[in-house]
């Protein structure tokens, strides 16, 4: 099954339809450039504005609907449910681009090189080419393994929230939320709203650290309102600081979680455990396209341009920064990508302030070393291939460990175990290869037609 419009060209392609991507698409479209916005999920919104099926008129849904209507009016093409398989810079494919699209295509941005993305949607495949790219690929959660974390009923924090958004009924369920960072508060509040009984919020940093951040919030009224909003709805929920999970126990389903606390081990009965230790910038596609990073965050200049000319990035991929940061960086990226440098410059100060706050958050919720003891030799580190901590000790790089144990060779392509291996052993994540995500074999036929014709002149002879 092949999509009719297999190859399309835009001035700008924005990857990721979360807050940053929506902002970037809008900024560029307002400036009258042709824009495509792509996302893997069925609806725009990313994580923080993930579509709430249960409450159609929720604030989040309204925000996204509003933005979407505006983008539709501005002629932005939105492609949902697509996965990015790979990409290329045009000089590699030499001329196929122009031939594929016909000579009438004008290059409105005068790019020295253009970019191409190979996309897949089920069995369908598509190639999008563009002069400029904005990567607004967000972040993913960092999961730290502990005994029993693979048991059904244990979820990531954002993960359980996403499932609840889609209609997972948690009324009356006893939930423990554990890990680190402001996300714990946000999801705990959401779970309460959905009728669950949140048993505790278990935070690895000390109360003192979090209070210090609270003091800093005086400088930022908007965030204070946000924080107080949460505080009220969470007032009754027990907070445990300096604590983290050690074991998730149960027979067929989760029944309890054992915590490490300052006063010793404590067991909490629960039906569900939502657990996540912060966020990690999602930069696989960026690195694949050659963008440089520093310790896992993309390097960008004042105008959000990466080390690759014509590729911009905004929001979490540049360092975990939160919603407001994503919005302003998205706007800067969208403007700068289409040459509206003066307009972009006006937003620099606001962006810098947001990044400053982001740094404070990062420092507050830094992972403590003791978390390395969460996993035991028998604890599974790679969930896809069932590789334990004990099997991984003794290697000196991800590559070596991978070849010997198959850790990281599974379906998730090391997205889950990668950050854990980095935290436990200091191994940096490997460069990703095409395909950037698992895709169906059926879709390859389209790429063969769409990309190989000009380059490869050999006949298979059948």
């Amino acid at each position: 099954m092949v999509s009719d419009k297999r190859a399309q060209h835009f001035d700008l392609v924005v990857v990721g339809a979360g807050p940053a991507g929506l902002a970037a698409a809008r900024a560029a479209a307002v400036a009258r450039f042709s824009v495509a916005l792509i996302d893997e999920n069925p609806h725009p919104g990313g994580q923080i504005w993930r579509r709430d099926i249960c409450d159609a008129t929720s604030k989040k849904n309204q925000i996204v609907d509003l933005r979407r209507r505006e983008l539709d009016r501005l002629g932005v093409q939105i492609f949902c449910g697509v996965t990015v398989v790979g990409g290329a810079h045009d000089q590699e494919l030499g001329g196929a681009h122009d031939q594929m699209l016909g000579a009438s295509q004008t290059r409105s941005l005068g790019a020295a090189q253009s970019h191409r993305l190979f996309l897949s949607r089920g069995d369908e495949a598509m190639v999008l080419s563009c002069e400029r790219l904005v990567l607004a690929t967000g972040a993913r959660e960092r999961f730290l393994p502990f005994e029993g974390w693979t048991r059904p009923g244990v979820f990531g924090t954002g993960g359980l929230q996403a499932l609840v958004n889609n209609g997972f009924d948690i009324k009356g369920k006893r939930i423990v939320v554990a890990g680190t960072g402001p996300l714990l508060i946000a999801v705990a509040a959401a779970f309460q709203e959905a009728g669950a009984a949140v048993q505790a919020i278990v935070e690895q940093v000390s109360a003192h650290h979090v209070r210090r951040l609270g003091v800093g919030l005086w400088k930022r009224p908007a965030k204070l309102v946000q924080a107080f909003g949460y505080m009220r709805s969470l007032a009754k929920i027990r907070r445990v600081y300096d604590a983290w999970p050690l074991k998730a126990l149960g027979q067929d389903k989760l029944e309890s979680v054992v915590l490490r606390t300052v006063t010793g081990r404590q067991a909490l009965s629960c039906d569900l455990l939502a657990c996540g230790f912060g966020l990690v910038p999602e930069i696989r596609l960026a690195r694949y396209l050659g963008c440089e990073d520093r310790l896992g965050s993309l390097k960008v200049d004042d105008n959000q341009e990466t080390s690759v000319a014509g590729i911009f990035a905004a929001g979490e991929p540049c360092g975990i920064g939160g919603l407001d940061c994503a919005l302003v960086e998205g706007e800067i990226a969208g403007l700068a990508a289409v040459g509206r440098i003066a307009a972009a410059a006006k937003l620099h100060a606001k962006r810098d302030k947001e990044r400053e706050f982001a740094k404070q958050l990062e420092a507050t919720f830094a992972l403590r070393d003791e978390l390395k003891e969460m996993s035991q030799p028998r604890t599974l580190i790679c969930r896809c291939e069932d590789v334990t901590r004990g099997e991984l000790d003794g290697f000196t790089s991800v590559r070596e460990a991978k070849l010997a144990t198959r850790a990281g060779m599974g379906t998730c392509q090391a997205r889950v175990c990668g950050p854990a291996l980095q935290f436990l052993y200091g191994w940096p994540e490997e460069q990703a290869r095409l395909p950037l995500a698992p895709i169906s074999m059926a879709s390859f036929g389209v790429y063969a037609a769409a990309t190989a014709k000009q380059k490869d002149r050999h006949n298979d002879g059948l």
Partner: protein
Amino acid sequence: MSGRVEREFEVFVDGRPFAARSDWTLATLLLNEGHFQFRRAVKGGTRAPFCGVGICHECRVVVDDFRTVRACMTLCRPGLEVRTGGE
């Protein structure tokens, strides 16, 4: 959210009919039915959705005989046949 959510059509899971909605993913459907066993792990044991956003692939199920899909990224459709417990 008030009361019972209205279901629209049937989806078959391991041969059994479950009432589903078109805006639900397979993950939502199975979890709401208390079905927490999605796939079998390499060294035994069962797995269920974990990351919830399509990254971990723990929620893999087989649809229409041969297709392995992520339950959390696959919407329900009328007559879909789903098998759990695969690898």
